[in-house]
């Protein structure tokens, strides 16, 4: 069987494209190299829905960010993904910063960003009381917001599957052959998959996929960003707070998350290794030093974890979204660094337009279902709803993760929806994301995974691959 389209990469872009394509009468497959969606840049980033003032006017980034930002409201409603339009501030401490802020404002106007204001320090502190009293001016963008990047990715993949897209995990694409009829034969995980069209959404590896069909028109370089995530009591910050940007990115920010935590980050370190997401002491020190400039009351004793993600920085300076030069039925969505998350819904629309331009036959489905529901969360229910949920399913009465109050019913549902590892359960339910970081619940989550997937405990992993959590049964493990 030949697919109409194969999407390579299960990050936020690939999953958003899959969802958008699932509106049409197509046989589509999403190929993901790892054991789950949202395993690369999409799980470790700033989770910001940018307003769109910091992209160069006329760039794809500028256009798709502003369009994507506007689309976020509908997408998050339809997919039950958290979105908070909390607004963002770029803060300045001196005249040089003010000049930069004015430049950002002018850029934002050109890009079509609505409702921006330049405010003085006092007004900025009215908007965000946790700000440093050293702040003298700020750019306020009320359309800036926060979301949950891995939840959006998971939601898109679930909705795409609901509408007929096939998802293959542990399916890394290692070769692509351009066929004489314009289609492709992809080698993935030892299997051959044929498709008339390919969407290259392989993130950090999108240049590799392009090169597999002889297109070396762009490169992607990893840029590491480290983060410190703090408990809910770390401080009371309600808006996204940027410092003025540098060449390496949008600077260190302090921001709330949709779950009520606070984070500081990211650093920006260029590297060659596309897997290395190490957190360094130097990075932690940098974040501590820079973040308190924005919010002096930030309490680093409340750090519950640190992590790092890699941005996929394109050599072209802009998103690479266009048909492949050597095989035009492959459409690239490559080099998607910031503001990739904000742009994702717009990138999906853009890709569909490009595929249409390449002759793809797109007929809308009569029965497309745009809605996807989040796993009903016990902690968010009223007492009446909780009682009802337990009456329907007693597993709602068994709390497994005590820090975040996650029940067994939610964990079982996450597994039913595709979680196959402890981290997969964590991203879908928050089990293990609280202050004990899984100290109590991870053995119980492992038990539930083992039971539901009918796998021995030795095969339960943290995040797929060889990330096994136990090495064997007692007395069966060889002495060292």
């Amino acid at each position, binding site marked *: 069987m030949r697919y109409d389209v194969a999407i390579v990469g299960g990050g936020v872009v690939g999953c958003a494209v899959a969802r958008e394509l699932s509106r049409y009468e197509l046989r589509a497959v999403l190929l993901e190299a790892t054991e789950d969606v949202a395993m690369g840049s999409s799980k470790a980033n700033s989770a910001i829905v940018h307003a769109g003032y910091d992209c160069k006017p006329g760039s794809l980034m500028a256009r798709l960010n502003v369009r994507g930002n506007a689309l976020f409201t509908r997408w998050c409603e339809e997919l039950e993904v958290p979105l908070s339009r909390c607004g963002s501030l770029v803060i300045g401490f001196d005249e040089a910063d003010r000049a930069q802020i004015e430049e950002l404002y002018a850029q934002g106007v050109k890009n079509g960003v609505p409702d921006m204001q330049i405010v003085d320090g006092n007004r900025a502190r009215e908007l965000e009381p946790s700000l440093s009293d050293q702040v003298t001016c700020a750019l306020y963008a009320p359309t800036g917001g926060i979301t949950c990047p891995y939840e959006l990715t998971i939601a898109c993949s679930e909705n795409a599957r609901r509408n007929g897209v096939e998802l293959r995990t542990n399916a890394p694409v290692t070769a692509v052959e351009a066929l004489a009829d314009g289609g492709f034969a992809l080698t993935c995980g030892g299997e051959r998959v044929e498709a008339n069209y390919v969407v290259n959404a392989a993130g950090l590896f999108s240049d590799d996929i392009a090169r597999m069909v002889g297109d070396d028109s762009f490169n992607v370089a990893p840029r590491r960003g480290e983060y410190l995530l703090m408990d809910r009591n770390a401080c009371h910050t309600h808006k996204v707070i940027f410092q003025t940007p540098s060449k390496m990115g949008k600077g260190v920010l302090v921001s709330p998350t949709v779950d009520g935590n606070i984070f500081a980050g990211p650093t920006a370190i260029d590297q060659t290794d596309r897997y290395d997401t*190490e957190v360094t002491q130097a990075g932690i020190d940098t974040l501590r030093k820079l973040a308190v400039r924005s919010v002096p009351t930030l309490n680093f004793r409340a750090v519950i974890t640190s992590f790092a993600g890699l941005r996929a920085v394109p050599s072209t300076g802009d998103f690479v979204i266009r048909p492949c030069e050597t095989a035009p039925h492959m459409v690239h969505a490559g080099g998607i660094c910031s503001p990739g998350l904000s742009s994702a819904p717009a990138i999906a629309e853009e890709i569909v337009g490009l595929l249409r331009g390449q002759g793809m036959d797109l007929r809308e489905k009569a029965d497309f279902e745009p809605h996807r529901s989040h796993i009903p969360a016990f902690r968010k229910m009223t007492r009446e709803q909780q009682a009802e949920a337990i009456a329907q399913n007693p597993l709602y009465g068994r709390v497994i993760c005590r820090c975040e109050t996650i029940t067994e019913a939610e964990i079982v549902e996450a597994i039913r929806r595709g979680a196959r590892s402890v981290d997969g359960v964590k991203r879908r339910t928050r089990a293990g994301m609280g202050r004990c970081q899984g100290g109590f619940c991870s053995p119980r989550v492992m038990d539930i995974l083992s039971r539901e997937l009918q796998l021995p405990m030795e095969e339960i992993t943290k995040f797929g691959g060889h990330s096994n959590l136990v090495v064997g049964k007692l007395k069966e493990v060889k002495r060292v």
Partner: protein
Amino acid sequence: MNRKADVVVIGGGPAGLAAALQADAAGASVLVLERDKEPGGILQQCIHNGFGLHYFGEELTGPEYAGRFIDRVKQTGIEILTDTMVLEFTADRRVLAVSAEHGLLEIEAGAIVLAMGCRERTRGALSIPGTRPAGVFTAGCAQRLTNMEGYMPGRQVVILGSGDIGLIMARRMTWEGAKVMAVCELMPYSSGLNRNIVQCLVDNDIPLKFNHTVVRIHGRERVEAVTISEVDVKTKRPIPGTEETIPCDTLLLSVGLLPENELSIAAGVEMDSVTSGAVVDEERQTSIPGVFACGNVLHVHDLVDNVSHEAELAGRSAAAFAKHPAPAARAHRVIAEGGVRYAVPQMLSDKAEGKIDLYFRVGDVYRGAALLVKSGERTLLRRKKPIMTPGEMEKVTVDVTGLTDDVHLSIETEG
């Protein structure tokens, strides 16, 4: 479902069980709410011996120690609901809990005993740099996997922190065939009991490296090695050039325990920032009348024997309150200073009289120093101790009859 009980005990570990027994003996109706499948708490995974020397005068394993209390509870009218999680309690002593069997439970309590225990500090809280592979466990999590589930968490192990659980797990994993490469301790002394250092590390030739920490974790999917480094004794910062990379597949963390007081904080109980537990008086009553606290949720203990004694006091107090709800007025503070890190109780009520036990910990190692307990100009006690360390909780008994002033605990060094 709505219910009532004279005394509701939150947590069915050693503290909760001891409190329940005493409350029952005092004639109260008692309901214990336990989140796990069986009572006994963390003792159930502590299959080593060394428990009960003080309380029972003999050496028991953790499950044996818990078993004695569970057997006693079975002979009473105490009701234990297992697999039951408390979601909140309020200052007017209403407890909301949930279980798969009973759904939501609303319980009206005459008095509440907080006995939720503690949890372990994590890698995240320490911000250990490096990658984030599988194979980094808190020592207690590894202990549960090993002793309750029957699985080996790893083969080649480095342990950070010389807390008791880490020391116990060093021995346990060695006996199960793993190689424990080293135990690193940031401080120049151990926070574990001396007997555990001897029996677990010395007897198994496991090196204990003081003034050392883990500065980097290696490995993408599973831990492949850790880099350790010596630290400056004063600043605790790694000393460049002293790094050593040790191959291993597992890093266990035994870097401190934190009382689990989310419920207490949400209810508005006044907390002690040093112990991370409630501020209590000599009856173990918190700032909320009728709410008592004991065991590791109040302050982290070294010996379960002390937990049992403290919980019995809290259980008796809770039963008395349930019978005659009369909030005690707080009369005097118990202040830890001059080398004493904290003292429990932190308050004395206006009813306090006669002999009272004060539990405390010191902030450093003291040899040949004396503990001084004063109230105004009155010296209540001066006791010389050959050695006092932060790892071992100390207890003194003082007579507080007729006090007119706050009580001060301090260390008096020679000269």
